[in-house]
């Protein structure tokens, strides 16, 4: 494996791109894909051909990871698709403010106060109840293409 080819394009620092091009044929179920400008999780991939002796095309069914809408797309399998950079970060939950924002503790000791509570009742209840019981909660925040959302919750308190 020669060196010059195999280093990541270090775009991480400045103006990081939100997506990365990847050949449609290599995207698998449970991976991520951008459909119609939205970051989606792939829940179904099927392939067919354009005419019997044509080339393969992939049919993706994705679920928008933020608003859960179902989206579909068909791409020739040798073409590139945009794959979103989906990151998940853990923060310790410090406080829930009255106006519906969370106060979170970042790894380096700062606080992050710009994340809104989810609007859905059940999710809201899960977070609020846990917090009210005085548990030590870590929330996992998923972010992709400039959007953020809480995607998991974990009780790290002593048993």
């Amino acid at each position, binding site marked *: *494996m*020669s060196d010059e*080819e*195999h280093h*990541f*394009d*270090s*775009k*991480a*620092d400045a103006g*990081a791109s939100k997506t*990365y091009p*990847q*050949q*449609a*044929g*290599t995207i*698998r179920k*449970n*991976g*991520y894909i951008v459909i119609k400008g939205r970051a989606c*999780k792939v*829940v179904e991939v*099927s*392939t*067919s*051909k*354009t*005419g*019997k*002796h*044509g*080339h*393969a095309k*992939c049919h993706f069914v994705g*679920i928008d*990871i933020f608003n*859960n809408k179902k989206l579909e797309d068909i791409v020739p*399998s*040798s*073409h590139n698709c945009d*794959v*979103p*950079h*989906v*990151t*998940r970060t*853990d923060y310790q939950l410090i406080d829930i403010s009255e106006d519906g924002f969370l106060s979170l503790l970042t790894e380096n000791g700062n606080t992050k106060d710009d994340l809104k509570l*989810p609007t*859905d009742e059940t*999710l809201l209840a*899960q977070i609020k109840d846990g917090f009210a019981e005085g548990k030590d909660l870590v929330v*996992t925040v998923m972010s992709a293409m400039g959007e953020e959302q*809480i*995607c*998991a*919750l*974990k*009780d*790290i308190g002593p048993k």
Partner: protein
Amino acid sequence: MQSAGISFLESLVSEFSPGTSTGMGLPKDYHEQCHSSMELNYLKEFYCWAKSAALNVADKIVSCYANISEEKVCSRALRFMFQVLNWNFKSSPSALDNSSSKSNSGSFGIRPDMGLLKKFERSLLEPGPLWHDALLSSGHMLWLLNFYAIVRQKHSSDMLWFDSPLAVSARQLIVQLCSLTGTIFPSDDGEMHIKHLTQILSAVIEWVEPPNIISGALRSGRSESEMIDGFHALLSMATLTSTMLFDNLLRSLRPFGTIHLLATLTCEVVQTYVIKNDDEQTWSSEALDIMLEIWTVILGRSGNDMKISAEGISSASNLFSTIVESHLKAAAESAFEDDSEADYFHVSVSRRDETLYAYALIARAAVETTVPFLTRLFSERFALLSQNNERMDPTQTLEELYWLLLITGHVLTDSGEGETVLVPEAIQDGFSGVTEELQHPVIVLSWSIISFAKQSLDPKMRNAYFSPRLMEAVIWFLARWVDTYLMPIDAAKGQLGISGHDEGLQQHPQSSKKVLLSFAGQHSQGETILDTIIRISMTTLTSYPGENELQALTCWKLLVVLVRRRHVCIHLVALESWRDLARAFANERTLFSLNARLQRSLAETLVCAASSFKDLETSNQYVRDLMGPMTAYLVDISSRNDLKAVAQQADAIYMVSCLLERLRGASRATQPRTQKSIFEMGCAVMNSLLTLLELYKNQSAVVYLILKFVVDFVEGEVAFLSAKETSILVNFCLQLLRIYSSHNIGKISLSLSTSLQSEAQTEKYKDLRALLQLLTNICSKDLVDFSSFSNDAESTDIAEVIYVGLHIVTPLISLELLKYPKLSCDYFALISHLLEVYPEKVAQLNKEAFDHIVRTLDFGVCHQDVDIVDKCLRAVNALASYHYKEKIAGKEGLGAKALSSEESNGEFQQSILSYFLRLLIQLLLYQDFRMELAGSAADALFPLVLCEQDLYQRLVQEILEKQSNPAIKTRLASAFYALTSTNQLSSSLDRNNRFRFRKNLQVFLIEVSGFMRII
């Protein structure tokens, strides 16, 4: 009046046959008595009543004076007779007579073959000798056939008549009588039986002959039911007779044999079948199914049962031409349609393969003509492409070639799933006159396809003609062909397998066989062909970007076949083209554009080939060269300073996933010869993997890949490792488990979408399965150990590891998750193994973990899956035996754990063992207990009874008191007594005693199930 009587009988009979009876709350043996008394005393009488009812009105119907109700009576009576003949006859002594019927079957061509009719949900009819007078000697058959023929004649102009109740039930009855067999026929060398079949054939032939007129009538709207019934009758005959006898059945009626008729019929059906798009012709697919089943029956046999006359051979040859030509025509016409069967090679493949297999059998019956025929067709199309100067659209020809490749593949090779593939017998034994290699039709055909495939290496040809679909067929064909003809085993050993039956023909076929088996042999062109095939594979992997189907076929079928046999591998690794492939895999970027799973398979294949080197060190060096760059790269990534920033990017994740898949592929190919280098590979990345697991804790896909790699790595390696290596591996696994568990215990994923939520659930479940497999694999170290030396001071206590591992994993497993069958299977496999091997460790588990295990066992014992119940019973057995033995030795055993549990619902209030005792007895007595579990149930019950003698006695008393029926009570009591007191059972847990108890329980269950099971 008569009609009402018949419907009364109808419901009576259906109530008495076990499949259709309604629940009455009576014991099972009562039902069985009813069944046999019905069969012995009444059934035949009922049949005769219905017969005379039919006879009474038959005359009127024949002379057209019958009114509607009389016709109705007749058809009901016939239908009832059919129902009676569908009875599941038990008393026929066929089981006893099997040997004698077999001995005379060989010589006279009658061969009962039970399994074969199953496909169409029909069975053979064996009512036994008592029925002889009712069905055979009274002229019943003749009357029925004549009756149908006369009525049919009368209604010949009425197209709807064929579906009338009278016609349908009469035909059903005739077809059912066709499958009559067994001891009802006297032992007269099958004479009576043959007469019976000929008689039916003479009538049935009217339904299907002449084939072209019949199919013409069907196309213009006549109902197909009569013809289909006729085919079913033919199928029954084919099943019951040898191929020769089947062919001869018709000769007394016609100047040609049955096979000739069958071929003509099949021609008609195939021609209609291939003209699809026509909704009204759906019958053709059903008809073709039956036809091909008949061909499979008569041609799929071996030895003397399958001798065909010259006329039959030429019929088969004609039929095959018709089949191929009609399909080619259909292929050309459908070439421009959209490809709707997306997953052709995986999903609908089995059905299509079945059809093609039947076609191939027909072709092989006449190899001398069909193989040259295929060669001609193939060369014609190939030539057409070569002449074509891009002026004409080649699509139709491509589709024809596609179909030709499929059928040729089937004719020349068998699929050989899971067995060593041999050249099909018909092809080995055929072509007796041929001694020159270049004249052997099979070799000519093979060469023309290989040189066609070779054209795909030329970029210009490839872009113009080798569409992905055509290439799929080429790869598929090559995979099967390589497995069968390339350096075949027979030739490799320098001797030819002589099959027993062709002794008379030995001289000539030998030479043609030799030619056939050696032309692609090790010392012939085998190596050149191998080289071509590797180059073609490279082309499909690199020049068809995104064609997953094609690349999957290349990786999973073709390349896998290449490394399957060692003597082929030896040539393989010496080839420059193979080295190119390995180099591209290790050092170039191109193959990263393959789907990650295919990269796994490619890694596995490449590593597999390493076993062929003579020298151990060369093998290991080959693996190091192949996998070294991967490990170096992973280590490099995980030690980067800006790792955190880079790692979450999609391209980084993709690279890491590909590398993990490749490592996993390599470890799956671990063999004794390459074990050393693979272990080095794993050790090199251990630390990196832990870093990555930490880093990607929220990327479930990567986590899963890491776990799966470790599972496969441990599975491949564990048996070979020395004590020191084991401790490295085991420590690594423990760290892995700890990290995983610290990230996942108590975590709840939040999502609005139920489908994303359930995806998350599934991912978690897959992770857990991997963890369980990992623990099970580590466990196996104690059972299978090939390591050369072991030094006690250094050795790790595997049990200790499992103990820790179990503490980590059990909290993650919920009863909810155990509903996934595969997970629960893995889980209980681990638990039962643990309890059997290290009961003392389990007894030391903390209370929470122990209770958890017991609760899951409780869940498992009541599971549906036999396998899981079996494993749980083994676990309970281990638990109880351990306790009993310890107590006898005066120790504590399970001690406090066995006795108390603060379960609030009271079920666990008593000791755990007594709880299981109660549960097990409950299961055995009152539930639908499966006899295949009797052995393990006995093993579990015995130590439980020994541990809890008092409770057992009390339980038995309880059960007896509950029983109100005194007769049953006595039987039950004596059964219980016999269970524990016969066979010199004593109270020790040795093997003999267990064996005796098994026997006792078997007897007990058989005795008890008769009156305790209520239906």
